[in-house]
């Protein structure tokens, strides 16, 4: 697992994924599933559109007063006996978590699914310092075995087939009967649970992410389908929540509003199987729970997005609907994007967090089909923000010279209607001549990037404007 980006080699990553073919094949099986289930869930809830609007407003309001709500949240966590640590960047967050683990004398930590710990590269840091992190979400567990990063923000191992996972389990779980049957999905799940059970019991620290941080009560909320998050945060002596600052919402009521669009958009469920609220460490009357409760709040570039054209991105609740519906993601999978956040949300967020100079292709590798925005429960204008990134790149001369010259050449003509008409008439005529009696060009000088994959229709020969003029003169 790595937090070192390869977004700058996006084109190569994508070409490799396509050539290899395995990822698009694996995705084909699941993507329709996500799409169909979401449609059903949305259709069953007449007020879904109104809820989207209200969810958006809740987050907009929170972001306008983020400092206030963060302070309130911090105060409430402290009142409930917990600790809050602010981390400016990934290094600081890693150091804080390691410090908590050390003070707890931790040798093993269990982890619930958390994209923020992926973002800060926490596992590698813990391992390098003698603490063994164990991922307990099934998907995360699988990719940890493989030493891979997640390829999807809610289904980290979605790029893998069942056969690949079976092979990994047989490779790693060598203490089990080699003749055991692992053909069914449930048998894989059972085996993972068996392996994880002992880890839950020996872990000294449990680390989870958070879907929401509630300012009103100082509560952190996680939604899961496997129940692993609950065991992660209840069994060890210390619970650490690692979350980014924009996860805060004002009230419990706000949380339940947004929850109504979250699972429906993500997996097409009405609610995730588990929605777990944690407020501080175990109280005297509690039957279980951690003795220590810490929250590490990560900024890592987010506060710099406030007040810019990218602020709306901070509304994101990580449901993954955008990538589930993205035609580009479908063909190349998540790893090609080169960092933790793939698909349309990643194409906006990654440049914000690691710098657009290191992720220049991401906002460009979109057809602007707009399907992501149409399914986003928080109504984030993803194509518009990708276009904002393209504008920043253009201003900074970051896009390829060929594209700039091509654009400049075309604009030179397009800005002069008379010259444009003359040159397009010549172009249409000469292409018609060149095409002779053919319907399409299989290759065309200067258009190799097009004709490498598809033919180009031979123009009819005269421009519309020239023909129209003739008609009008008659």
């Amino acid at each position, binding site marked *: 697992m790595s937090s070192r980006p390869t977004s700058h080699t996006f084109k190569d990553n*994508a*070409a490799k994924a*396509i050539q290899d073919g395995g990822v*698009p094949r694996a995705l084909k099986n699941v993507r329709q599933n996500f799409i169909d289930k979401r449609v059903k869930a949305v259709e069953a809830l007449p007020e879904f559109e109104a809820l989207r609007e209200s969810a958006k407003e809740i987050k907009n309001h929170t972001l306008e007063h983020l400092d206030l709500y963060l302070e309130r949240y911090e105060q409430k966590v402290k009142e409930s006996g917990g600790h809050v640590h602010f981390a400016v960047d990934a290094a600081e967050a890693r150091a804080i978590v390691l410090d908590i683990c050390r003070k707890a004398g931790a040798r093993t930590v269990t982890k619930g699914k958390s994209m923020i710990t992926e973002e800060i590269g926490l596992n590698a840091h813990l391992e390098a310092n003698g603490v063994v992190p164990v991922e307990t979400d099934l998907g995360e567990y699988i990719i940890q075995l493989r030493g891979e990063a997640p390829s999807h923000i809610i289904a980290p191992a979605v790029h893998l087939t069942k056969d690949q996972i079976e092979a990994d389990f047989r490779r790693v779980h060598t203490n089990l009967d080699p003749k055991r049957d692992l053909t069914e999905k449930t048998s894989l799940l059972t085996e993972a649970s068996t392996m994880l059970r002992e880890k839950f019991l020996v872990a000294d620290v449990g680390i989870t992410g958070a879907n929401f941080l509630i300012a009103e009560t100082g509560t952190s909320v996680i939604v899961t389908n496997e129940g692993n998050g609950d065991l992660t945060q209840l069994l060890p002596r210390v619970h650490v929540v690692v979350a980014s600052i924009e996860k805060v919402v004002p009230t419990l009521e706000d949380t339940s509003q947004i929850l109504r669009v979250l699972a429906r958009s993500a997996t097409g469920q009405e609610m995730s199987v588990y929605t777990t609220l944690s407020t501080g460490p175990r109280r005297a009357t509690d039957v279980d729970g951690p003795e220590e409760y810490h929250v590490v709040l990560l900024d890592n570039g987010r506060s710099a997005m406030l007040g810019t054209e990218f602020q709306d991105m901070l509304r994101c609740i990580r449901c993954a609907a955008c990538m589930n519906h993205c*035609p*580009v993601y*479908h*063909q*190349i999978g998540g790893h090609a994007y080169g960092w933790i956040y793939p698909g349309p949300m990643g194409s906006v967020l990654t440049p914000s967090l690691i710098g657009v100079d290191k992720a220049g292709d991401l906002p*460009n*590798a*979109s*057809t*602007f*089909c*707009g*399907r992501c*925005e149409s399914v986003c429960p928080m109504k984030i204008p993803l194509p518009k923000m990708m*276009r904002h*990134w*393209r*504008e*920043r*790149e*253009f201003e900074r001369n970051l*896009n390829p010279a060929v*594209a700039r010259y091509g*654009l400049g050449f*075309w*604009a030179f003509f*397009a*800005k002069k*209607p008379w010259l*444009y*008409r003359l040159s*397009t008439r010549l*172009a*249409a005529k000469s292409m018609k001549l060149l095409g002779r009696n053919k*319907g*399409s060009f*299989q290759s065309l000088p200067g*258009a190799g*990037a*097009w004709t*490498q*994959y*598809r*033919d*180009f*229709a*031979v*123009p*009819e020969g*005269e*421009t*519309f*404007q020239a*023909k*129209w003029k003739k008609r*009008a003169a008659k």
Partner: protein
Amino acid sequence: MPRPEPGAKLRVALFATCLVDIVRPSIGFAAAKLLEQAGCVVEVPAQTCCGQPAFNSGDRRTTQELALQMIEAFEGYDYVVVPSGSCGGMIAKHYPELFADDPGLSGRAEKLASKTFELVSFLTDILGVMKVEASHKGSCTYHDSCSGLRELGIKSQPRRLLGTVDGLDLVEMKDSEVCCGFGGTFAVKYGPISDQIVSEKCANIEASGAKTLLAGDLGCLLNMAGKLSRMGSEIEVRHVAEVLADMANEPAIGKAGEKTA
């Protein structure tokens, strides 16, 4: 926008789009015929491009210059009609945001935006056209181009009018709302990805069993026709206006041959 008074002759400016202008003028004539049949006076002001390639490449200044050129050429008409959802959407949805900070131009951009429409939805939603006089033999399938569908809400309008074409059998392909992989410069900047997307689209078109593929945007049509042609497919590809105007007598996009009677 309210429907025009009955009997009023509307002066409609046809913005053919640069692709239609250069590659397939017959779409422009089909659009003009449909508008004239509906009682409009059609004019074609001198035109180049709406600026979309610059807009989507991040070149805001060039976009503004081209948009201003469009505003000056087209603002004097009752309506501006475009046989393309993406160029129509560019003017109707994005021009106002381009000049939002320019008090001198924002009003003019808004005004042009409010009277600019994609062709088929203009016929149905503004002119109230319920049927067309056209015939077309064989089955057709319709691809929903992204900007038309998601920016302008064009989905039922072309299907409604196609339903009145004599002899035409409309069959739906799987995933008609999924992008064809064109995306303007995307198709050449990210060729391998675009190729995967359009290949899947073409497989769905083939699987529909339709003899003709229709859509409302020439960019998407050139992409799909180009791929179908490369695959050796027999499927004919046309702009929806050609069929609605009963002018599908030019060879289909990318096909050789002579105009038929």
